[in-house]
């Protein structure tokens, strides 16, 4: 066991960190948001630097991909990071043209990046399929929930099958991607809230010095830290159904709490488009609605642990 980043992992995070510092951030996300578009420049820069293939590297894998996805979410990147950098390489064995949407066959529903995606990974019964999407297939949907959304009809039987059992693999990596994106998003939401409560003064003192505020933020930190380490461990173990669902279950429980508390403690300011909190916080609810949300992940975790035929 070793919980420290190794030199290569540190170098990867430094590299993606400086790229994100130049090309991502809440301000950029907030500027793109009214247009409902993806950040194609950021997507290209990430691909050009090789991050889209980091999960398939000779010396890098899913854990490094999770670290990068978390960093992109923390920097509020408007790219389909989880699907492109983690899920597609691990399930299809290759990187797919982005943005990449994730969906369930037979459904016609709102999905992240649904109007812009060039590829989709679709759970279709027992198999996962790679679907090349035509431009204009998805319909843009105006949404307040932080990502460019689109309604996308995904019919059964369409696209390249990745073989029997691949749907389960897709679901596991998808759950892990959700956990990683939620962790990065929650860390950023907490960071801006911590900064706010340390600065905002009422009753002659910083509101962050009140125990009623401190304890609830401390509990958020406990939930986020647990989710973070579970996501790394699940990546290290190849997103087994149990580990991936467990990480996602914990992350979605944490996301619920972090959403409520960060908005509570930033008061009316946190609702404004001027303050950056919403750029991250609203995304948490979007993440919480995929694959059955917290309940879906919890049930999957319980089934994997106690009900799998062994």
């Amino acid at each position: 066991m070793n919980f420290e980043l190794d030199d290569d992992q540190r170098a990867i995070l430094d590299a993606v960190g400086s790229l994100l510092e130049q090309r991502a951030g809440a301000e950029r996300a907030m500027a793109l948001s009214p247009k409902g578009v993806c950040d194609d420049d950021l997507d290209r820069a990430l691909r050009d630097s090789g991050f889209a293939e980091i999960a398939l590297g000779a010396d890098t894998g899913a854990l490094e991909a999770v670290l990068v996805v978390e960093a992109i979410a923390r920097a509020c990147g408007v790219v389909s990071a989880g699907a492109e950098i983690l899920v597609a390489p691990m399930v299809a064995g290759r990187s797919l043209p982005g943005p990449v949407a994730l969906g369930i066959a037979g459904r016609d529903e709102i999905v992240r990046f649904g109007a812009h995606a060039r590829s989709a990974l679709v759970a279709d019964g027992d198999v996962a399929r790679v679907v090349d999407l035509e431009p204009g297939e998805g319909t843009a949907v105006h949404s307040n929930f932080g990502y460019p959304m689109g309604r996308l009809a995904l019919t059964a039987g369409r696209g390249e099958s990745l073989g029997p059992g691949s749907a389960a693999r897709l679901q596991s990596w998808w759950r892990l991607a959700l956990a990683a994106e939620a962790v990065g998003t929650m860390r950023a939401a907490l960071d801006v809230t911590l900064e706010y409560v340390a600065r905002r003064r009422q009753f002659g003192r910083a509101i962050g010095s009140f125990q009623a505020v401190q304890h609830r933020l401390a509990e958020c930190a406990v939930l986020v830290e647990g989710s973070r380490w579970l996501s790394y461990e699940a990546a290290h173990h190849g997103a087994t159904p149990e580990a991936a669902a467990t990480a996602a279950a914990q992350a979605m429980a944490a996301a619920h709490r972090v959403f409520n508390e960060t908005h509570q403690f930033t008061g009316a300011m946190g609702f404004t488009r001027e303050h950056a909190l919403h750029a991250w916080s609203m995304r948490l609810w979007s993440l919480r609605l995929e694959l059955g949300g917290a309940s879906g992940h919890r049930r999957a975790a319980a089934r994997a642990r106690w009900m799998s035929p062994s």
Partner: protein
Amino acid sequence: MEFDWSSDERAFRVDLRAFLATALPENWPEISKDGPGSDAQAAFSVEFCPKLAERGWLTQNWPTAYGGNDASAWCHAILGEEMWQCGEPRGAQYMNVNWIGPTIMRYGTEEQKAQHLPPISRGEVLWSQGFSEPEAGSDLVALRTLALRDGDVYVVNGSKIWTSYVNHAQYCFLLVRTDPASKRHRGISVLLCPLDLPGIEIREIPSVVGDRYFHEVFFTDVRVPVTCRLGPENEGWEVVAHALQYERVGAARYARAALTLDELAKRAAERGLLDDPAWLDRFGEARAACEAARMLVYRVIDLRSQGSPPTADTNVARVANTLAERLVSELALEIFGPDALEYGCFADSHFRLAMTAGVAVGATEINLNLVANRFLGLPRE
């Protein structure tokens, strides 16, 4: 990052389980139903710990110079998980190994080390922890038990409360105020106090947690030799702070909770309850909380194995353990239904043990204060 056990660590766990399979008697569930502080379990620990010691496992994490094997912090964590999972057959002796011994190693005189460490490493001695007082619980530095110097003894007057294991112990790791004019952190000293001295009276405080769980200890003109003092006079707070960091993740509560949850799931499956998504939801929630707590404890062990000074990660882990244990113990009652109401049954035993998690070794609120200030950097008043 690396999240696999080494082959040595895996082999150690296998050996340990094989040993436990033979060392724990058939009536172990009955012996352990009242927790590590009960008469039955205390008596058992004095038979059991020497067997662990014979195999070099009891104090394996200690340096060889003090009768240990220099085992890694990870091997010691495995020992803690396996012991706590099966109901802690070491009884109160887990404290000796985890923090009392190491604190004596760090702050003790050569005489104190020679006196105390060998019996601990042989598994022969029981200790208790004399911290809380009626007016000094979470606010531990408000302690008032006074130890006034009289030549080569301290004369101790005062009382300690909630003292677990003291009814069987030979020694107490006792916090006293040696400077009567002092306040708060200053003027505190630690005494390694023998409990057979005249003037010490122990009374049980009956509780719903279990028999012989809590005690009050009264000190009336107890003459404790000055040679029993651990560390410098009036500067004992540093010793205590050191000990507390080791104590707070001492018990592998997540491991017990996870094992209890597995057992509950088995029983729930037998009754068809796992076909109900609502129950599955609850099981998944509790499982995720146990796993999160495990990883947060591992983070602390990882920091310790790298020789990092204690951080607030310890408090983060402690809070997570409490959350996990609570979810599991509540589920235990609900899964058992009215059968849970019988004293000593599986659900009841776990529930009673879990009840203390948010209060024992520092209330959750104290841990949250430390997380807020040290982990999140939030301002104090």
